């Protein structure tokens, strides 16, 4: 392979000279800060990652990254130097639901950073490091086998690549069924598309979709990871209308203590909401959960999180959904909800807790809670559509005044959300 032909003999000589002096160059100790000004040691472009998918934070600043291509969950124990407090970032005017764009043109800026065009940028997930309020996103350059992963953080509106080399790292392989040594005339590679990872009390819970089995397999892995991995794989069924039971992949999950016991709440494609006691999820077990809600058919859940309403101080579950409004359900109802099915007629649309869900106008591709008053979203710019932004969005209505309700700012204008009244509450509450 010849890479210097276009330069002719002159360039060839120069390149050889560079190679000859490179050892000397690196030995110039006074100049070493130049190297530390930027990214990785040679060769470790993406550290141990083969792909960068779902993200979650655990205790002690541990960032979990789901790696579908590498069939693993990675744990990066971020150091204090990897984090920058964003507490001083202006998030908007909470009193009238007016957020701010924290990063405009996210996809275009990522493309510039990674030396490509924005159609080659895929933003897979976003997570907030709560103590610092710093936003982390998982990104890939490219959409095929040549895709290169990166973790990018937002520092006061600027995008910074998280330099993975040097961060204490461990990983757990996602167990697959053992592969018999069959010799086939062609390859049938199995893959497990990790859809969610959550940390709870010394364990991570990993869900995903297989390209071959339509199964509901949940992996339960202790963290810190041990050399001898003890993982637990559970097959999960859910009942259908009192007559059948079936299996499906969990798309999003959340672990929450309700009624004094930890439970796993799972949302599937076509959005049944299912409840499992964590204690039942034992290795090798086949478990059937309680369907406690149906959030609407023909849709996919995007994010599943909880937040505390700054007005009534109650905790709510929020499920954002791709083709319809997001669902808001009181956490207190999750434990007491009667399991479906009831045996009666089933509506086409929300059922169970889905019937009492609050609908919120979130159209974001990713949503995370930033602090008690603000969420942060990655969304297509509502009026132009051609660019992806990271913006703040005020809780608890997740409603952006800038998107076209500016008459609410008029002295005698409409006030459909009684925000003036809430503004008073907020003022009284300090």
């Amino acid at each position: 392979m010849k890479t210097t032909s276009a330069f002719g003999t002159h360039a060839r000589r120069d390149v050889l000279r560079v190679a000859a002096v490179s050892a000397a160059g690196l030995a110039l100790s006074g100049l070493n800060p130049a190297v530390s000004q930027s990214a990785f040691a040679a060769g470790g472009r993406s550290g141990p990652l083969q792909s960068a998918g779902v993200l979650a934070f655990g205790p002690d600043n541990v960032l979990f990254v789901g790696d579908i291509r590498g069939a693993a969950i990675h744990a990066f124990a971020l150091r204090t130097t990897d984090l920058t407090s964003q507490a001083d970032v202006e998030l908007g005017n909470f009193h009238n639901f007016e957020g701010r764009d924290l990063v405009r043109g996210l996809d275009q800026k990522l493309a510039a950073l990674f030396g490509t065009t924005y159609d080659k940028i895929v933003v897979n997930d976003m997570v907030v490091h709560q103590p610092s309020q710093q936003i982390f996103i998982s990104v890939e350059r490219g959409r095929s086998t040549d895709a290169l992963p990166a973790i990018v953080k937002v520092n006061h509106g600027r995008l910074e690549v998280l330099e993975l080399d040097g961060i204490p790292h461990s990983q757990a392989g996602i167990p697959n069924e053992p592969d018999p040594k069959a010799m086939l005339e062609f390859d049938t590679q199995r893959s497990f598309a990790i859809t969610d990872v959550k940390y709870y009390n010394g364990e991570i819970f990993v869900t995903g979709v297989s390209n071959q089995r339509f199964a509901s397999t949940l992996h339960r892995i202790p963290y810190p990871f041990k050399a001898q991995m003890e993982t637990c794989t559970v097959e999960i069924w859910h009942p259908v209308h009192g007559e059948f039971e079936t299996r499906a992949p969990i798309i999003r999950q959340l672990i929450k203590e309700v009624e004094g016991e930890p439970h796993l709440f799972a949302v599937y494609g076509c959005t049944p909401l299912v409840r499992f006691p964590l204690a039942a999820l034992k290795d090798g077990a086949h478990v059937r959960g309680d369907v406690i809600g149906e959030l609407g058919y023909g849709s996919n859940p995007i994010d599943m999180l909880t937040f505390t309403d700054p007005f009534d101080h109650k905790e709510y579950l929020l499920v954002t959904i791709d083709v319809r409004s997001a669902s808001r359900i009181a956490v207190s109802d999750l434990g007491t909800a009667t399991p479906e099915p009831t045996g009666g007629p089933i509506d086409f649309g929300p059922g169970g807790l889905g019937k009492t869900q609050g609908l919120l106008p979130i159209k974001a591709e990713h949503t995370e809670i930033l602090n008690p008053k603000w969420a942060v979203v990655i969304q297509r710019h509502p009026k132009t559509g051609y660019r992806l932004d990271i913006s703040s969005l005020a809780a608890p209505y997740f409603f952006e005044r800038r998107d076209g309700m500016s008459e609410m700012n008029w002295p005698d204008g409409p006030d459909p959300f009684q925000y003036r009244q809430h503004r008073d509450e907020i003022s009284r509450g300090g």
Partner: protein
Amino acid sequence: MVAGPTLTTPGVARPVDAQVTHQPLLMVDSDPGQPVMAVGIYSLDAAFMASVGRYVQGGGLLQSVLRIAVGQTGALIGDSLPDVFGRYQVLEDAIRFIPHFPFERGLSYRASFDPRPFSCPELSQVLTLEFSLPKDQDALPTEVTRVFPSSDYLPENVLRFYVHFSNSMERGRVEAEVSILGPDGEPAPDVLYRAPVELWDGSMKCLTILLDPGRLKRGVGPNRELGPPLKVGQEYTLAIGSGMIDLSGRRLHNTFHKRFRVTEAIREHIAVDRWEIVTPVIGSREPLVLTFPSPLDWALLSHTITIVAADEGLIEGRTVIDQGERRWSFTPALPWAAGSYHIRVASTLEDVCGNSVLAAFDRPLRPGRDLAYEVANRSISFQLA
């Protein structure tokens, strides 16, 4: 073969001032030990490098001196875009930039070297260089090579298709390009499942397409409301649009159609005891042949059936799946010896409708909450004597 970089402006940028004895050169290069193409400013004299050292030690950033940006970003935002991210090397007479991710072939980049922060009177001219790396030669056009299930007759509750392409593909196009055409030739609505993540294998040559399980499963809302996605006796077409994009950015050579006629649904577990077995002759390398009453899942079939000897040792050999995934043949690496053998069938094997060895895709509700640990594999024994 990879060709060298193409330069849209003269390959080496240098100052026009002929008085300078050392002429800095801004150029693209590659460290012989590394595949990553880098950009460097070379032939810097010792006095200049000393001022670089002072600049860096004083907290100066080389990012503001040697900058590389994408030439044509297509960006439409007002904000300024960041430069390409990478690391810097300071050599004896040069500064090099190595991008975090390799420069992309076919894209143009713009490098600029601005020596003004160093306050060297003899070197104050900004140098710029545009470059791009040629794209690899296009290989053969990409096409759909195979689809499973391969039969032209599929049950009403068929769950999934595997679509094979001749090259690796890009993700992100499936929802727009893959459809089931109804008997009228128009796309049938709400038939396919929109997976939250497109289901590709590691090579990105095999795509898994699911029909909407909510319409396949009895009792689930969409099934009760809309009925099953396919109707018995009708003819449908799985259509893969030519807008699917391959690894090198090209569309498919042709739109691909697989036509099939719909037969009665299958709603029972895989009955292993109804398989036909043809056992081989001792001392031969004849295949052991299993024939199934209805098609099984092509991918799962390839790794869920194994042959073990009486001592539980795995028999190595080669598997062929044919006759519309209704026949599985196993040719051993060594001739068959006398003795007893077991055909092990993993409980995870499914048919084309998602019915497993254990139960139908949608099984009748079992009583109780803690369900039996149904993980036992099925086993069929045969004797060669």
